[in-house]
Each structure stands twice: as structure tokens, then as C-alpha cells.
């Protein structure tokens, strides 16, 4: 029995190895959102230039929506954009855009004119007021909002086809039934 005492440090070491091994596989950029199951923060953003409509939190009430934070400066947003256009063409859910931190007022509209506009409304958020209210740390980020205006899911980084098919679309379908 006494001899087994020597195994205690080995045991502690093994536990630490597992603990750190798990920790290392996690992406430190991905923060758990504290906003899940909370109401969308109140906001009222003006529209970006061009044929777009402004975007306020009340626009989200009464329907399931996808809120997407993007910027023309953001490379990952460029990668995500075709998929958003595809979602739009399938009509699965209306997408609301927050055009975040454009350096120049015309950058966002020009981007959408060039690549296609998947958004029902696009708000202009040059000084991060609404991005911070949403707890955004980087673009793109997307939120699924239910009919009552409660945030139910947060996607950090581009929406991947896998995340869309496995998690997001099923959740949207379920929320639409409620």
C-alpha cells in the first residue's frame, strides 16, 4: 500500500496531461457567448449608402432571422459571402446585415453591389456601437434570433456548410415552428 503512494504524482501528472491536452485543442479565439438566450440589445442603425434600409432591433420581432456582422475589409467575410447569397436564394431565413467598421462610407455598398446582396436590411456600424452590444470580437459573426427577438445561437467566423446543415438550419426550422 505504501508503495502505491509513489503512483500519486504520476496520477496527478496524468490528470494534468489530459487537462492541458484538452485545453490545447480549443481555439482561444472562440469565446463562449453570454448573450445566448438573451434578448437582442436595443439598437437603431442607419442604412448604408444606396438602396438599402436601416436596421433596428424591432425589425427582428415576429420572425426567425439571421443577423450577420460583416465588413468589406474582412477576408473571412469575403469567403463567407457566396454562402450567404446562397442562403438568401433558398429563402430559408431572412438575413439582416450589420456593416461593421467600414473605413470609407462607400466600401460596404460597393462590396454588396459587386458580390450580390443577401441582406433584407443593412445597418451601418462605423464605431462598433452595435457590434460591442452584440459582444462581437471579430467578423464575420452570425446570430440566429427567434421570433421573440431572443438570440439562440452564435456562429463565430464564417458559416460553414457543415455548421449550416448540421446545426443552424435545423435550429432555424425548429424555431420557425414555434
Amino acid at each position: 500500500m505504501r508503495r502505491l503512494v509513489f503512483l500519486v504524482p504520476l496520477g496527478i501528472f496524468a490528470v494534468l496531461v489530459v487537462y492541458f491536452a484538452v485545453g490545447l485543442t480549443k481555439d482561444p479565439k472562440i469565446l463562449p457567448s453570454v448573450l445566448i438566450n438573451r434578448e437582442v440589445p436595443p439598437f437603431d442603425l442607419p442604412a448604408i449608402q444606396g438602396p438599402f434600409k436601416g436596421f433596428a432591433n424591432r425589425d427582428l420581432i415576429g420572425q426567425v432571422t439571421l443577423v450577420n456582422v460583416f465588413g468589406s475589409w474582412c477576408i473571412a467575410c469575403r469567403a463567407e459571402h457566396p454562402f450567404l447569397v446562397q442562403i438568401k436564394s433558398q429563402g430559408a431565413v431572412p438575413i439582416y446585415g450589420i456593416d461593421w467598421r467600414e473605413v470609407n462610407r462607400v466600401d460596404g455598398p460597393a462590396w454588396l453591389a459587386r458580390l450580390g446582396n443577401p441582406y433584407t436590411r443593412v445597418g451601418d456600424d462605423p464605431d462598433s456601437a452595435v457590434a460591442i452590444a452584440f459582444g462581437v470580437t471579430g467578423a464575420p459573426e452570425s446570430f440566429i434570433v427567434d421570433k421573440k427577438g431572443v438570440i439562440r445561437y452564435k456562429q463565430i467566423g464564417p458559416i460553414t456548410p457543415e455548421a449550416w446543415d448540421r446545426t443552424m438550419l435545423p435550429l432555424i426550422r425548429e424555431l420557425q415552428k414555434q
Partner: protein
Amino acid sequence: MRRFFLLLIGAAAVFGASRALAVEPSEMLANPVLEHRARVVDKQLRCVVCQNQSIDDSDADLAHDMRVLVRKRITAGDSNQQVIDYMVGRYGDFVLLDPPLKPATYVLWFGPAFIGLIGLGVLFLFYRRRIVRDSGDGDGDGEGKGMAEPPLSAAEKKQLESLLKGDNA
């Protein structure tokens, strides 16, 4: 030598410059009391983009916007704690550079001390055993039994004596 000092001064200038404040003059509040409070709050908030800097230190665009927001809320009459609570409400405890003390962070706060105590305990046991062994466990209390060497036999004593005398026979 002179060249060395010039180099040193140059290096100090370069590094000194890079440590310049991230807070830009244009962001600062005219009221020095409020600005000071804003700086105090800035230093407690993590830049969520760079993660290991406070927003007071960070040049990230989002950090800039967070500093501006801190000043807006302070000007609007929020207390320092209210501003911090606002950020925590959006980013969670993560936005605090000093993690708060609560059950989820007990390991973080007490873990190092706990591991240190274990280390001290192990050291204590190790040295106690050695002292007991070195004293030959002659105190008869049976402590250190199994660890201490058994007493020398008559033959071993004889061998030891001859070795000590330098007699190689």
C-alpha cells in the same frame, strides 16, 4: 564605448516609443477627473481581439471603439462598475483582465498555492525521512522502519573499521 551608449539611447527611444499610449489624444475627455476614471476602467478591460492586452494598451480598432464607449458611458453618468458590468454583460467575465473569484475560477485562484503546498509537503516528508535515516533510527520508536538501514553485522563493522584505517587488506 560612445557608440555603445548611442546605440543604447537609440534602443531606449525605439522601445520607449513602442510603449507609447494606445489612448489617442482625440479620444480623451476634456474633464481630467472623468478621463482618469476612464483610464482606470480601460486598464481592467481586456482587448477581446488581442486577448492579452488591456484596451488601454491595445492599438486594435475594436479596443479603440471600446475606449470611446467607456468614455461615452462615463460621461453619461455611469459609475466605473456600471461600465465594467456593461462590458461583462456582452463579453462575459472574459473581458476582465483579472478573473473574478467564483466557483468556476477556484482552480485558477487556489491551484498554484495548492500545488505549492503539495510540493512543500513532499519536501517535508522527504527530509524528515532522511533525518530519521541519518540518525540511524536509534531512538527506538520504530519510526522510519523499513527505510533506515539495518544495523551493521559484526563482519561489516570489522570491514568498515579496516577501510577507515586505510587498510586495504
